[in-house]
């Protein structure tokens, strides 16, 4: 019985293959965007985990606040019985990118460090003996081949952008002779060892937090990507919902017949669920495959962003991960269930003798409109509640999601009202018919238009956020990068000689010295600033106490970046605990793009608290026309390598490059979402086209040509897209505000001013019209060519 009934249900799809294609493709597209984003996230997180495992995993470490550990301290600890292994860490930089070099002692390193195992299996002597060896993954080895380095051997299981060397070789390559970055405390320790404070009082024991910090820093980035994936998925679901609702509505008489011929309601519902499950699995497979392609295309940019913004080691190549394949299928099934739940509920409760209303789907009742309005109101209230009472990133996204859905649900009512107004003002019978007919068609198109609204609003919102960010960031870079040239010496001694050399050449030499430390339990940077007009005139302060620069110079106050101020709820006048004692917060400054907390103290105060701070970096103030001369003098007369200096313009260009690359992914997802919405309109118009004949045939019979009717259909689609675009602008702006004032603050710790870009809206409007125009062209051409016999069938009594 079930097989026979199933064959009847399937026969519908055999006769309507395009509708089936719409359903599968809509679901596949939705799944593709979602699983593509998930693939990127999974790849990045796997890279972090591999990197964490590579350098000691979760073992505790010994570090020295504000500097490296002298080798003698390590020897002293070993002699006292402490089972520790040294790690030296630094960056190798070339045009091919940066590679993190980790120096290890393979004899004391824990065997689970991938490289240590490789060394012990191979010729250990080659690893120790100069020139030594580097161990890296195959792709990293290719990058290293372009640098002047010891031979590289490749090994499996090494994290991307990471290379290992013997500690002595690494110290030489990184210019860190006699220095150790940290000591890993091994699992097995003697029963009695003297306390750390007796042997190395300057060292602090910390839980290994390096990669955890990285995960924390990048979490917001991944959450943003996930949110975008979810938005695209929601847009896709509108297509699926529309396609399923239409398919169910068209088959409603068949369902009734099946019931009348003896198929129980329970069996019918089960068969429909089976059918949908089959679709979801097919679409899921297609979607995951498409998602893989999307992820493979976007991953290089994401990897570059993560490396540039956070120094996170992510390779630009995608690996096969069964977890996200499974997740892709799960989301396709869940999406289908969400999109079809309403339709299935109706079928399960369908009275056998319900009057056949083949156009019931297109004839949305007033009750549906009211229900949509009520749902929009509830979602609006949820969004408001999330603003007023929620906190954290998740509340931000709840608010965003509720807001967007509320706007989408409001759309049919607003469009219906606008069309009612237009029809009131219409003069002439054709115009009256046009408006009335458009209004009648609206319910059938409303899901596609909702998808378009979401896509357009997301485009406007995200576009406004990115452009506002860019504008603010450019202005901020101008303020922040006031020095004309930035130079870095190799050693403190060289720095001293360089300052003496530069004194007659530059107007001012501003130290850029910093230490990494822990402030209020999280990693932070502490910079020392000179008392100079450059800072007083240019530093981008958001709020400050009077005379703040004098207080900073006197070592009485600090400046904190916005991220730290927001995280710890600090404002000028508060006290902030720092290594070496608390100071008053004198001001808060904007610090876009920095994931870390940052504190500025007077340079003398920095040296007092961290006497061993490296004094290598300086900003030079000089007249721009003397820039080239000073640069030449530094290279030719002083002997500073050219790669140790960078001018303001180069830093700005690099920063903007990182910035633009960061948002390449956002831009690509924006375009994909709009494409999905365009597809939604196309499929809705095509499926509606067949159902429209009974409405159009009378107009044709009364004297309108098929060509004219087709042109009117085209105009209708354009007009509805234009109206949707007009409504998308305010929704998009609210979205931008939420992104700038709520999500950014929660995710990154800074708030950006909002700017408006009406030109971008105009371009987007033209794109939306183009998408709607192209989507409606095919159905319109089909209508212009429909044979008169088909139109005449509408009037046949024998149907």
């Amino acid at each position, binding site marked *: 019985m079930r097989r026979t009934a199933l064959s009847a249900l399937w026969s519908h799809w055999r006769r309507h293959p395009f509708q089936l294609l719409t359903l599968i493709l809509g679901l596949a597209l939705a799944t593709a965007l979602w699983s593509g984003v998930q693939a990127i996230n999974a790849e990045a997180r796997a890279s972090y985990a591999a990197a964490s495992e590579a350098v000691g995993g979760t073992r505790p470490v010994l570090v020295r606040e504000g500097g490296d550990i002298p080798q003698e301290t390590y020897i002293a600890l070993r002699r006292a019985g402490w089972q520790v292994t040294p790690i030296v860490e630094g960056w190798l930089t070339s045009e091919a990118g940066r590679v993190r070099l980790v120096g290890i002692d393979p004899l004391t390193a824990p065997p689970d460090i991938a490289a240590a195992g490789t060394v012990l299996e191979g010729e250990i002597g080659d690893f120790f003996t100069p020139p030594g060896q580097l161990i890296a993954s195959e792709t990293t080895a290719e990058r290293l081949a372009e640098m002047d380095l010891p031979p590289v051997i490749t090994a499996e299981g090494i994290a991307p952008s990471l290379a290992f060397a013997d500690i002595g070789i690494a110290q030489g390559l990184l210019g860190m002779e006699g220095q150790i970055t940290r000591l890993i405390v091994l699992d097995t320790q003697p029963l009695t060892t003297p306390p750390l404070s007796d042997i190395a009082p300057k060292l602090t024991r910390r839980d290994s937090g390096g990669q955890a910090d990285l995960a924390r820093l990048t979490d917001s980035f991944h959450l943003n990507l996930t949110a975008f994936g979810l938005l695209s998925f929601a847009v896709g679901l509108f297509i699926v919902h529309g396609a399923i609702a239409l398919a169910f509505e068209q088959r409603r*008489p068949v369902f009734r017949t099946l019931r*009348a011929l003896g198929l*129980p309601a329970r069996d019918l519902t089960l068969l429909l669920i089976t059918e949908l499950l089959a679709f979801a699995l097919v679409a899921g497979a297609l979607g995951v495959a498409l998602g893989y392609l999307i992820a493979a295309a976007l991953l290089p940019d994401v990897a570059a962003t993560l490396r540039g913004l956070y120094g996170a080691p992510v390779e630009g190549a995608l690996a096969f991960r069964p977890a996200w394949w499974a997740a892709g299928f799960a989301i396709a099934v869940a999406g289908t269930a969400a999109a079809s739940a309403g339709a299935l509920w109706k079928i399960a409760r369908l009275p056998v*003798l319900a009057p056949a209303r083949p156009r019931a789907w297109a004839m949305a009742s007033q009750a549906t409109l009211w229900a949509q309005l009520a749902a929009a109101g509830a979602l609006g209230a949820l969004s408001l509640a999330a603003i007023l009472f929620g906190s954290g990133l998740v509340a931000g996204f709840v608010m965003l999601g509720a807001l967007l859905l509320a706007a989408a649900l409001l759309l049919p009512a607003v469009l219906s009202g606008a069309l009612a107004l237009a029809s009131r003002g219409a003069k002439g019978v054709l115009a009256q018919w046009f408006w009335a007919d458009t209004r009648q068609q609206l319910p059938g198109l409303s899901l596609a238009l909702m998808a378009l609204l979401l896509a357009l609003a997301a485009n406007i919102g995200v576009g406004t956020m990115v452009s506002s960010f860019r504008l603010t960031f450019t202005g901020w870079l101008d303020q922040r990068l006031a020095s004309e040239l930035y130079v870095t010496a190799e050693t403190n001694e060289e720095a001293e000689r360089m300052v003496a050399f530069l004194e007659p050449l530059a107007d001012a030499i501003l130290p850029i010295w910093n230490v990494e430390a822990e402030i209020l339990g999280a990693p932070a940077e502490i910079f020392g600033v000179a008392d100079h007009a450059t800072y007083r005139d240019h530093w981008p302060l958001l709020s400050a106490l009077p005379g703040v620069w004098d207080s900073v110079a006197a070592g009485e106050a600090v400046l904190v970046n916005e991220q730290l101020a927001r995280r710890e709820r600090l404002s000028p006048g508060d006290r902030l605990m720092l290594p070496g004692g608390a100071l008053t917060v004198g001001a808060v400054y904007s610090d876009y793009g920095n994931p870390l907390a940052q504190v500025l103290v007077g340079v003398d105060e920095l040296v007092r608290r961290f006497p061993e701070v490296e004094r290598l970096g300086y900003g030079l103030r000089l007249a721009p026309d003397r820039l080239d001369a000073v640069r030449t003098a530094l290279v030719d007369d002083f002997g500073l390598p050219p790669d140790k200096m960078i001018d303001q313009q180069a830093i700005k260009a690099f920063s903007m490059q990182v910035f633009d690359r960061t948002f390449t992914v956002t831009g690509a997802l924006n375009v994909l979402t709009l494409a999905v919405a365009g597809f939604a309109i196309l499929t809705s118009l095509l499926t509606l086209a067949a159902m429209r004949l009974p409405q159009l045939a009378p107009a044709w019979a009364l004297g309108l040509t098929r060509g004219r009717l087709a042109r009117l259909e085209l105009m209708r689609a354009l007009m509805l897209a234009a109206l949707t675009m007009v409504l998308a602008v305010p929704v998009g702006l609210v979205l931008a505000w939420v992104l700038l004032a709520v999500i950014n603050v929660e995710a990154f710790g800074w708030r950006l001013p909002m700017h408006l870009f009406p030109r971008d809206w105009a371009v987007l409007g033209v794109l939306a019209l183009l998408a709607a125009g192209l989507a409606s062209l095919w159905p319109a051409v089909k209508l212009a060519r429909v044979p008169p016999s088909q139109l005449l069938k509408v009037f046949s009594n024998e*149907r």
Partner: protein
Amino acid sequence: MSPTNDTETPAPMLLTVTDLHKSFPGDPGPVPVLDGISLHLPAGDTLALTGESGSGKSTLLHVIAGLETPDAGQITIQNTALETLDDTGRAALRRETVSVIFQQFNLIPSLDVAANIAFQARLAERHDPDWCATLTDRLGLTPHTAKYPEQLSGGQQQRVAIGRALAGKPPLVLADEPTGNLDEATGDAVIDLMLELVAETGAGLLMVTHSDRLAARLSRRLHLSRGRVA
């Protein structure tokens, strides 16, 4: 004198309806549609239900088919009391015991003529390809087996519906104004064929019709007026 055949047993009772009541919600109160209807139909017998519009003919047919539930009264089909059946039981009854021929044909538009005719028999797992082929031939549909319903005339569609109803050789056929959508000549031809085939399968037939002329062609007739047997 030839002896009278006193030993001939009467046909077993196929359908018994007793004191059936059904009303629909209305303003200001429920509107009674069936008001104490009782009837019976022996196996192989034919009964016409006539009456003016709104007299309750179609509702009676739907209630007998288990498509509607009565407010009160009993219906027994082949010794099975309908009120004891749930939705699944009523569906099984429609599948295996009762076939309905609708005025609007209610064919499955995505299946061709051959598949539509065989459909209910296959649902009931009583598909007999030879009988289906005979039926198709008798109904004059052999040249149209590969066509879809939308490619057929109204008369042809109704013949497909009759074929579908009889393909499983059900004991009871319920026909709701089967010629209501057809012109007189086509309607007559369809009824001739239907009566012929019903007689051949030995099914009982209960047919709703407006037409006295068509009703006269069935063995018995029951006239309804305002929900009662007139």
